[in-house]
C-alpha cells in the first residue's frame, strides 16, 4: 500500500506483499510469526509512519526491535523494496519518541569513549587469558557470554618475522583498528597487517582513531554515530590510498561516512574504505603453504548485503592450497549476532543461531574451522559451537591466510 512522503518510507512502496522475503528472514524462520517477518514489519513501519500505531505501542516496538537488520530480505525481493531504508527511518522515529533502552544506552556509552572500552575489553582479554571463560562456556546465558569471550582467543602464535621490504611505490593502507578488534581480536589485526604486507601493501599507523559508531547508528543514536565518525575522519585525514577494515560491521558504516556526515571529508573517507578481503582479492591473493582443513565459510550480513562483498572472501580462502572449503545451506543467513542485538534480545538471537549450529553439526565431514569476517558473528557462532559441544573453531579468513603464509615460509625469510 502506498502513501509515503519520507523518501525512506517511500522505499517500502513497491511491496506487493508477495511473501517471497519470508524464507530469507532469520527471525521469521525462528518463530514462524508474520509479525517477525519483513513483510509483517513493513506493515508495522507503515502504520508507525501514518500514526495508526504509536511509537509507544509495546507490540509494535517488540517486533521492530526484534529485526536483526541483516537485510537478507533485500536480495530476495523481486520488487527491490528498500527494507533497510524503511527500518532506519522507523528506528529513528522510535529512538526520538521513546529514547534508547537503558541497556543499549549503557553499551553505547562504553563504546563512545575510548578509555572506557579499552579498559573494559583489555580486562576481558586478561580474564580470557586465565582460561576460565573457556571452562565456563555453556548454553546458559552466562555460559554463552563466556563462550563468546573464549572464542576470541588466538589459536596459533606465528613466530615473529623481520617484516617485508616495501618499495616506495607500494600502495599505502591505513588499518582501521576498531575497538573489539584492537583489544580481544588484536591478533587478527596483526595477521591483517602481515598478509597485507605479504601482498605488497604498505601499512601505515593512524593514531587518534576510535570506535566506528555502527552500534550507535543501528540503535538509532545518530548523534553518537556522527560524533565518532567526525573523530575518525579527522584522525585519518588524507593519509593512505586505502583505509582497510577487517570487521564487516564497521566497514559497512565506514563506507557510509559521506552519507552519515554529509561532508566532502566524510565522502573522501568513505570512498577509500575497503574490506581486507577486497584488497587481498585484488592481488590474487598471493599463495601460501598448504592447510589441509575442512572449513566452512559463513558470510557476515554486513559484508554480503550492506557492502555487497560476496566473492572476495571466497577468493582469499581459495588461495590457500589444500583447504577444503564448503558453503553450508544457510551460510548466507544471519547468525543472530547483529551488533548488540544478541545482548538485548538473547532468546531470539539464540533461536536464530540454533539453525546454523544444527547445520554445522550435521555437516559431514565435520568442519574443523568456521570462518567469518566479523567479530560479532565470530563470537556468537563461537559461543554457539561451544554450547553445542562441537569442536570446530572460529577464525577470521585472514587468520587462515596468515597461517598458510607462515606454513609456506613467507614470514621466515627476508622478502
Amino acid at each position, binding site marked *: *500500500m*502506498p*502513501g509515503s512522503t519520507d523518501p525512506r518510507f517511500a522505499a517500502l*512502496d*513497491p*511491496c*506487493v*506483499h*508477495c*511473501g*517471497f*522475503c*519470508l*524464507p530469507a528472514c532469520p527471525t521469521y524462520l525462528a*518463530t*514462524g*510469526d*508474520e*509479525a517477525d*517477518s519483513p*513483510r*509483517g*514489519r513493513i*506493515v*508495522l513501519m507503515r*502504520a508507525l509512519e501514518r500514526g495508526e*500505531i504509536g511509537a509507544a*505501542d*509495546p*507490540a*509494535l516496538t517488540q*517486533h521492530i526491535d526484534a529485526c536483526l537488520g541483516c537485510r537478507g530480505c533485500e*536480495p*530476495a*525481493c*523481486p*520488487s*527491490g*523494496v528498500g527494507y533497510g531504508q524503511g527500518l532506519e527511518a522507523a528506528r529513528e522515529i522510535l529512538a526520538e519518541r521513546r529514547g534508547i533502552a537503558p541497556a543499549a544506552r549503557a553499551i553505547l556509552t562504553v563504546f563512545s569513549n575510548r578509555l572506557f572500552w579499552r579498559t573494559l575489553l583489555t580486562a576481558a582479554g586478561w580474564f580470557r587469558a586465565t582460561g576460565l571463560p573457556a571452562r565456563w562456556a555453556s548454553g546458559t546465558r552466562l555460559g554463552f557470554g563466556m563462550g563468546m569471550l573464549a572464542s576470541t582467543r588466538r589459536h596459533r602464535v606465528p613466530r615473529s618475522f623481520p617484516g617485508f621490504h616495501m618499495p616506495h611505490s607500494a600502495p599505502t593502507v591505513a588499518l582501521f583498528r576498531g575497538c573489539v578488534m584492537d583489544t580481544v581480536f588484536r591478533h587478527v589485526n596483526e595477521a591483517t597487517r602481515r598478509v597485507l604486507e605479504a601482498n605488497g601493501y604498505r601499512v601505515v599507523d593512524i593514531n587518534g582513531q576510535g570506535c566506528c559508531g555502527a552500534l550507535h547508528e543501528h540503535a538509532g543514536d545518530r548523534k553518537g554515530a556522527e560524533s565518532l565518525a567526525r573523530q575518525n575522519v579527522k584522525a585519518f585525514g588524507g593519509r593512505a590510498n586505502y583505509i582497510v577494515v577487517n570487521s564487516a560491521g564497521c566497514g559497512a558504516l565506514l563506507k557510509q561516512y559521506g552519507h552519515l556526515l554529509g561532508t566532502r571529508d566524510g565522502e573522501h573517507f568513505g570512498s577509500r574504505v575497503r574490506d581486507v578481503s577486497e584488497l587481498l582479492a585484488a592481488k590474487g591473493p598471493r599463495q601460501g603453504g598448504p592447510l589441509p582443513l575442512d572449513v566452512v565459510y559463513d558470510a557476515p550480513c554486513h559484508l554480503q548485503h550492506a557492502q555487497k562483498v560476496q566473492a572476495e572472501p571466497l577468493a582469499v580462502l581459495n588461495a590457500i592450497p589444500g583447504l577444503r572449503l564448503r558453503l553450508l*545451506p544457510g551460510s548466507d543467513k544471519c547468525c543472530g549476532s547483529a551488533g548488540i542485538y544478541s545482548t538485548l534480545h538473547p532468546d531470539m538471537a539464540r533461536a536464530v543461531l540454533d539453525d546454523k549450529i544444527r547445520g554445522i553439526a550435521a555437516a559431514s565431514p565435520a568442519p574443523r574451522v568456521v570462518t567469518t569476517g566479523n567479530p560479532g558473528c565470530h563470537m556468537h557462532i563461537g559461543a554457539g559451537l561451544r554450547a553445542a559441544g562441537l569442536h570446530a573453531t572460529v577464525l577470521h579468513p585472514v587468520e587462515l591466510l596468515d597461517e598458510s603464509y607462515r606454513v609456506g615460509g613467507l614470514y621466515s625469510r627476508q622478502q
Partner: protein
Amino acid sequence: MKESLLTGLAAIVGPRWVRHRRAELATYTMDGLPTHESWPGVVVIPGSRHELIDVMKALHASKTPFVARGAGTGLSGGALAEGNAVLVALTRLNHILSVDPASRRAVVEPGVVNARLSEAVLPYGLQYVPDPSSQTACTIGGNVAENAGGPHCLKAGVTTNHVTDLEIILPDGSLARLGSTHGDAWGPDLVGLFVGSEGMFGIACSITVRLEPIPPAVRTMLADFPGIRAASEAVSAIIASGIVPAALEMMDQSCVQAVEASIYAAGYPTDAAAVLLVELDGQPEGVAAEHAVVEPLLRAHGARHVLTAESAADRARLWQGRKKAFGAMGRIAPDLVVQDAVVPRSALPDVLDRISEIRDRYALHISNVFHAGDGNLHPNISFDRRNLELASRVREASREIMTVCVAAGGSITGEHGVGNDKLDYMPLIFDAETLGAMQATRRVFDPGERANPGKVVPIHACREWCASPAARGNGRQQHGSLAEVAHD
C-alpha cells in the same frame, strides 16, 4: 474476543504464541493479495500436532469460527479472518515426518515449505512436482487447501494428483484419515474432495505426498515473439502436435521488463512482445525427439529466437525469472490485482486480444504472466489505490475480463482458489442449486460452519440454497448459524 478463550488458548500453546495485540494482528490482515484486508480476532500459532488438536477442541467448545493459514502467500484472500474468528497459523508445524524413497512417499506437517520438501528429497533423486511460483515461501498445507498448481503441473497434474492420504482434524477437534498411502482407497475419493476445499472442511495435520524421480533429461527453451497472438498460436500448435511439455509458460513484454529490472533478471529479451518458456523432460531420446518437433513449430509461428538451456544453472535462472514475476510487479505500481482464470487453450489467442482491448479501453497497465499450456491466465493489473477513480476502473475491468473468460468456456479460477476475492464471480458459473450442494457438502465436515466462514460460497445467496433440494433438511437451522457468523 472472550478473555476465557484467550486464557484457554494460552494454556495450550503458551502465551507467547497467542497474538492479540493490535499491532500484531495488523501483520495478519492480508495474505498475498493486499487488496483485501480484514482483522482477525486473535492469532494462535500452535507448535505441535498435539497443541493443534487441543486448540481445535477449545475453539469447538466455545463455538468460535477459525481460519487456517500457512505462509499467507495465497492470492484470493482465503487465509483472512474477521470478526471473532481465530487465525490458526500452521507455520510452526513444519516438520518432514518421514521420507520413504523406495515407495516414493513423504509424510509432512502442513507448515512445511513446498521447496524445502523437494530439497530434502533431492539426495534420493526425487522431487515433489507441484511447484507454485511462490514455492520458496508457500506451505504444503496451503497447497492442499487451494489445490495449488504451478508451471510443472501441465504434464504432472496439480496438488490433488500428488496427495495420497491425509490425516485431518475436523472442526469439532476429532481426527479422520482420508485416502490410502498405497493403492487406491476404498469408496469415493475423499482426498480429492478435501484437496482444494479452501480450509472449509478442517485442517490437514499430516499430509502424505507422492514423490517423483527427477527426469534424466531436461531441456528448457526460451522463445521470443513479436506478437502475443503469435505466441499463443504457437502454444496451441505445440499441444495440437500431441506433445505435452513438462511446462509451457508465457510472459508479455510488461512482465518481462519488470523481471529484467529485478534481481531475478533471467536474460529474457525486453523488446519482445511475448516470451514462451517450454520445458521438455523424460528419457534423453524422447526429449531429443520432442525438441526436434517443438523448435520448428515455435519458429514456424514467428519466434524470433529459440534458445535452449541445458545446464541446470541456466534452467534455474530461466525459471527464477518466471517464478518471481508476480513479486516484481511492485516495480510498476504500488498496488496489484491478480486475476486467475482458465480458458480453453484454443480460445487463448482471442481471449488475449480481448484483454488487450479491455486494457486500452480502461487505460490500464496490465501484465500477463501465465500457464499457457493449460490455458490458465494471470492478468496482473497494476495501479495506485490512492487514485480512487483508477481503482474503480480496475474493478470494472477485472470483472469484464472474468466475464470474457467465462463466456469463452472458461472458469473463474485456475489455481488461486475463490477465497473472498472471487465470491462475486461464483454465480457466473454455478447456479443456486449447485451452490446449495456445495454448502450441504461442507456441512458434512463442518455442521457449525465455523471453518473459514464467509469464503468460497457467497452468503447473499443463502436463501436460495435453503430452498434448493440439495440443501433441504437441516437448511433452516443452519441458516441461523450462518447469519450469526456473518453478523458477529
